[in-house]
């Protein structure tokens, strides 16, 4: 269901005075209304429904709630970015509650202003571009759509790198250091509005549209050459 439709349904429910999904205000209350069915009591996880949250910490809770990935209607569905279901205060309460399940990692601190865009490009090319494409436009892998990163905040980038959401691998500090992560976040920020030296960006998705345009231009040039060297019949 698209985010707009969900909001409409919620508004309708509020207008009718029915208890809405966002009725509770404490972390525990919000959790039992929105998360419990799949993630179980105290984040123990439910087989076939949702993974355990005992050691995921504030990092994963913050990421999945602020990107709108969770709550998910169907556990087999790929989470996709949408408007968050909860307000900032509600997210803070939920994140605190999920973090209380166990000793999980905190929300990472990332400083793109300390990073270097060129180093970020190197790290991104090596670790991310295989799926997300070099200008972070997203794409496809076997079994999943790869999201574009045009609306990801630096904190969400850092969280995703360490968590590895859905089918993405995670990258511990031995693979991408904190300093490289700062650069990576700086590059992703840059890639939101890249400097297109060539003129036509063609959607930043690489050789396919570029090839199509080349064929089109070459075809036009060939037709022009034919018109130059040929002559119309005299009928």
């Amino acid at each position: 269901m698209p985010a707009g439709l969900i909001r409409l349904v919620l508004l309708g429910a509020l207008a009718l005075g029915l208890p809405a999904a966002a009725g509770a205000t404490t972390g525990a209350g919000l959790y039992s209304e929105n998360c419990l069915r799949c993630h179980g009591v105290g984040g123990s996880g439910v087989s076939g429904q949702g993974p355990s949250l005992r050691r995921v910490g504030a990092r994963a809770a913050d990421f999945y709630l602020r990107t709108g990935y969770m709550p998910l209607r169907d556990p087999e569905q790929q989470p996709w970015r949408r408007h968050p279901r909860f307000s900032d205060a509600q997210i803070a309460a939920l994140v605190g509650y999920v973090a209380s399940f166990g000793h999980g990692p905190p929300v990472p601190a990332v400083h793109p202003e300390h990073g270097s865009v060129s180093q970020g490009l190197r790290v991104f090319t090596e670790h991310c571009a295989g799926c997300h494409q070099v200008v972070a436009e997203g794409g496809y892998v076997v079994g999943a759509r790869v999201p574009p990163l045009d609306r990801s905040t630096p904190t969400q980038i850092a969280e995703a790198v360490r968590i590895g959401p859905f089918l993405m691998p995670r990258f511990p500090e031995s693979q991408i250091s904190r300093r490289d992560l700062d650069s990576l976040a700086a590059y992703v920020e840059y890639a939101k509005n890249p400097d297109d030296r060539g003129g036509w960006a063609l959607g930043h998705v690489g050789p396919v549209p570029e090839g199509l345009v080349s064929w089109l231009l070459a075809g036009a040039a060939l037709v022009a050459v034919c018109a130059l060297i040929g002559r119309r019949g005299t009928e």
Partner: protein
Amino acid sequence: MRRWLVALGVLVLGRGRRPPRLDRERIVPEGLPSRGAEVLVLALFGLTALSAIAFIVVYAWDAIPHQTQSLGLAIGLAFAFLSAALIVIAHRLVVAEELEDDYPPPAHPVEQEEIEQLVEESGDRMTRKRLLILGGGAAGLAIGAALVTPAASLGPVLRVAPLLRTPWRRGLRLVDERGRPYSADEIEEGTFYTAFPEGADREQLGAPLVVVRLEPAALDLPDGREGWAPDGILAYSKICTHAACAIALYRTPTFPDVQPRPALVCPCHYSTFDPATGGTVLFGPAGRPLPQLPLELGGGGELRAGGNFSGPVGPAWWGVRSKKPL
């Protein structure tokens, strides 16, 4: 179009024709011989042949900078010169009077003869037909040779031993990009590592590895590979068995209950290999499993090779399945 066909007909049929009968009335008006145009055509044929030969030379000579661009330039120039030669023939050598009469059906021998005469006379301006045919033949041959040359890269015909050689031997340590040995306890689940043989040339096809860790209980390796994956750590060749791209993607589910199983994926054509079952192909164009390298733990917990790969590394070639790595 017709003029091009006529030009081609002149080139193909012109040789060894009987001299035009003098008593016959001409259909095509007489054109003056143009030696200048002929020389130009010959020069263009020569340039075509030279460009095509340049393509072959650049293809064979790896050390040249910007090889791909030079290849494109050479073959592009060859075709450009060839088309220029044909344009000159059509414009300046073939008599260019428009004859709008319909061609009669070929069943009538008299008219057939007329067409032959027409073709013959259209080529009248060419004084050195044999030389031109020779030039055109040389240009065509050179372009043909240039187009066939890349077939040499399809694989070795006689000597395949270099393709089977890998640097991996029992006891060799696995190191990272900076040459630091990997220890087993730093290999985490859910991510993947690139490893190289210590002290060996990393540019060799058989050198790079992709290393992952899975739950030992989740492994289902083929018979004879018992003990190849200590603590669930697996090493595979990083070179895809389809077209030799680097296996740069690792698909790893957050929630394995409902999501696809872990897989090594090649970004070029999405060949997908299952690390839990010995690198078998799950999806994509690859025709054989990813070669697995047996691993051992050293005394200090470092990762060492336990032998050579399970099969030949790299893309497929004739008879690759029957070979063993050296």
